[in-house]
């Protein structure tokens, strides 16, 4: 279990508990948090679950995989701390994670 804070583009923050083993994307979708579309449902196919991982957490969240990286770099919102949230697995070590959502996904 990890407590994760999702911050919308308008700075509205949502803090929820997410079970270990789920993805950061699933944590947002299951709690109906706006700002993550996740069109493909977690297949690493669409690039619509992008989040910016707060600096202090970026390394702990793990490295991008090749497919994820090649999708992310073609999104409008791409930044050095971008991740596809469907590719971040929640573990106890991510308790306290803070991610921010772009203005628009895709």
């Amino acid at each position, binding site marked *: 279990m990890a407590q994760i804070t999702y911050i919308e583009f308008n700075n509205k923050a949502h803090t929820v508990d997410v079970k270990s083993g789920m993805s950061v994307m*699933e944590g947002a*979708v*299951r709690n*109906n948090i*706006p700002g993550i*579309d996740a*069109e*493909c*449902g977690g*297949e*690493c*196919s*669409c*690039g619509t679950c992008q989040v910016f991982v707060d600096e202090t957490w970026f390394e702990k969240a793990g490295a991008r995989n090749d*497919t994820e990286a*090649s*999708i992310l*770099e*073609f*999104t409008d919102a791409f930044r050095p701390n971008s991740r596809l949230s469907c590719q971040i697995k929640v573990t106890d070590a991510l308790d306290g994670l803070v991610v921010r959502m772009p203005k*628009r996904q*895709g």
Partner: protein
Amino acid sequence: MQESKPHVVIIGAGHAGGTLAALLRQYEFTGPITLIGEEPIPPYHRPPLSKAWLKGEADAESLALKPLEFYAENNIDLWLNARVARVDPVGKKVSFLNGNILAYDILVIATGSRAIYPPIPRADSRGIMLLRTAADAEQLKATIGAGKRLVIVGGGYIGLEVAASVRGMDAEVVILEREERILKRVANPILAKFFQSYHEARGVTFELGCHVASFGSENGQVTGVWLGDGRGLPCDAVVIGAGIHPNEDIAKEAGLECDHGILVDLEARTSDPNIFAIGDVSRRPMPIYDCMFRMESVPNALEQAKQAAAAITGRQAPMGEVPWQWSDQYDLKMQIAGYPFEADSLVVRGDPQAAKFALFHLKGDQVQAVEAINSPPEFMMGRQLIGNRKAVDRIRLADPSISMKEVVAGRDA
């Protein structure tokens, strides 16, 4: 609109209907929402049914769009196992087969589509299945396993996905296709040939240009398939993937304009201003191609759910999307963007032999569609090009040694 708190009734608890209910709450709609589904379970993801779910790699929790408690917590009245008989657009009422009547202020028809059962003798035998619902997938999963033989009627994406999943369980698979090649309706010959070879190399057998005359059965259980040329193929189970049909009957009976799909505008509104239609069941404008489309995809269901949610809550409409879809088979990731509408040429980028390539369909020097196999950059950039209508240099596009970013940036990059 929110002061008067209209009652939104959504017929159809699939991906479109379930997403719309959730989006209305995200958009701070506070009126009552009733979500009506025929199936016994709350809205779930259908795409994994032929993939991860079939292979046993997904559980019920991950299949669900939202956790069960979500609906009560968000004051969404979920009616399951409920079948709508008709809609009365004048009295603004929905009546159910069991005699119940429900009044609405705003109605959303999200009834999706049904798999087509071809009129083949003994198609009602046990072991002959469609793959549309979680219940269908459960039945298939229980029937098929190592050493069993599955015949798939229809060489479309759903048939190919099932074949790939079932080969992973060491079952035998034969795909029957009535056209002279697979994917005839949805993909070009290069892609069709690629998929066929890839499946054949993994043990799938194809029978093309073949007519299914009848099914053989014993005590009501399917035992084989008889082909038009007289041959018989013994099997333990059959999956029919022969296309889908929009569930538009209640809309037609209510007098809504339909044309193989309920006609809607860019707000997902039908010819009745109080009724919307979203997802597979609707036929909608697609501005980038300047025509009407009926699409059978999750991204389309989500886009139209956004359109309807925005219209109902008085928000700004979504920006307009490039349609896309995906398919996973074995280790292949296929992503398709756009439709090859009025395309007049094809550019192949990459090597089909290496299972890493993309097909760009061009109209003049603009990209209309891209089909990408294990090529996310081509898909992502192709999707942007379809949206922004930027001209591309086809010589450079065909050269995989030039990165997609450089192709798009032009010669000076």
